[in-house]
């Protein structure tokens, strides 16, 4: 992905900023300009808490080019507590320990590096909840 393309996605990538529909209140991630629930405009930024659970997962034994460093790595659909599903890598977990329903939390990690002299791309991944009792 080109540098400007990565740069303009920073808010979503680094901290899971989405949108909330002004009309029906649906929380949206990724951000989009028209609410898929009620087809009204949705432009209001919304900060997701980054907590959720694994809706489904897989383990890639054949990495995508640029992701070889992590192979084999788990990828999940994470159901955020505010509603949306997010596609993301799981990190700090052994693939055999992942299960559907596992509580996870968002962390910001390296997604890929565009070669040794290129951009380092950071973004959200999810990991098993470190300390369930922590508030906030």
């Amino acid at each position: 992905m080109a540098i400007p393309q990565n740069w303009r996605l920073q808010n979503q990538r680094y901290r899971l900023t989405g949108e909330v529909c002004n009309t029906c209140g649906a929380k949206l991630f990724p951000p989009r300009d028209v609410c898929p629930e009620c087809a009204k405009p949705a432009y209001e930024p919304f900060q997701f808490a980054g907590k959720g659970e694994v809706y489904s997962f897989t383990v890639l034994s054949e990495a995508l080019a640029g992701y070889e460093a992590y192979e084999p790595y788990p990828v999940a659909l994470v159901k955020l507590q505010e509603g949306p599903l997010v596609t993301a890598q799981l990190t700090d977990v052994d693939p055999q320990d992942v299960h559907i329903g596992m509580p996870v939390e968002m962390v910001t990690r390296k997604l890929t590096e565009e070669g040794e002299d290129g951009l380092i791309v950071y973004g959200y991944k999810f990991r098993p909840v470190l300390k369930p009792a922590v508030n906030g």
Partner: protein
Amino acid sequence: MKPIRDVGIIGYGAYVPRYRLPASEIVRVWKGGDGDTPITEKAVPGPDEDAATIAIEAARNALSRAGIPPARIGAVWVGSESHPYAVKPTSTIVAEAIGATPETQAGDWEFACKAGTEAMQAAFGFVASGMAAYALIVGADTAQGRPGDELEYTASAGGAAYIIGLADESLARLEGSYSYVTDTPDFFRRPGQEYPTHGSRFTGDPAYFRHVLAAARGLMEQLGTKPSDYRMAVFHQPNVKFPERAAKTLGFTDEQIRTGLLADVIGNTYAGSSLLGLTAMLDVAQPGDRLLLVSFGSGAGSDAMSFVVTDKIAERRDRAPFTQDYIRRRKVIDYGLYVRYRGKLKMH
């Protein structure tokens, strides 16, 4: 040194990666299985971690404890010797990730293992002067030692972050700080070099001990405090032996340094080292406790700081994971996986 207005720490956060390399693995690979080790094991960053990601998580923990809107942070300063880019600030990545941009100061600091505490000292001045309501400082590293070198046992990864504000909001109030700096080339890395060069035994008396002891004594003399006034103390911990000897020389007991002495189980987290010792102490400190921090950075210098814990500690401490939560979360890896995770395999 003491700012005109009283300032202190209003939030703090730790981060230690999940992976551990036992020192016995290095002995196995490089010494044929026989030999003393300076520590038990060290923290190793995962393949998707670097100083920026470590700084981000530590900063988020500090922000949770501080309970302030990130937009009110007026400076984001990250100290590290392993900034992911040679040119391009780590601090802007951290500032963006926590939502402190764009109306903020940002900068990267470098002074070997004391890059974080020098940023902290500057933040005290920045806030006390009124130039910022709050300042975020981070010490974070993913340090590398040459394979087989004695440094490889301890060079590790981790970080800690602090949000500095005025004293009345603080969970730990700054009593004063003192710095001691000389030009002492005990350890350095030239541009383009993968691994640092160190002076072996030269890193001891003329470097670590001279600066650490002078800074600690200078601070206590200035404040009129003595070792027994401190509930706990942390001295930069490149290993276990150095801080133990420094403490003993100054008249601190093992009991006083036990809480902050983490090197045996996580290694030397460089810019994170003394700052992680302080997060561990704050995790258990009681209001009224006096805490001493003395950093050391090769090249060389020490910053010493004295804090008094306030009653705000109780309500804020539980808002983020404790230092020991991260230390307990551990997955042991072998030398092969360590070499892969640290990018030491030639792939191209």
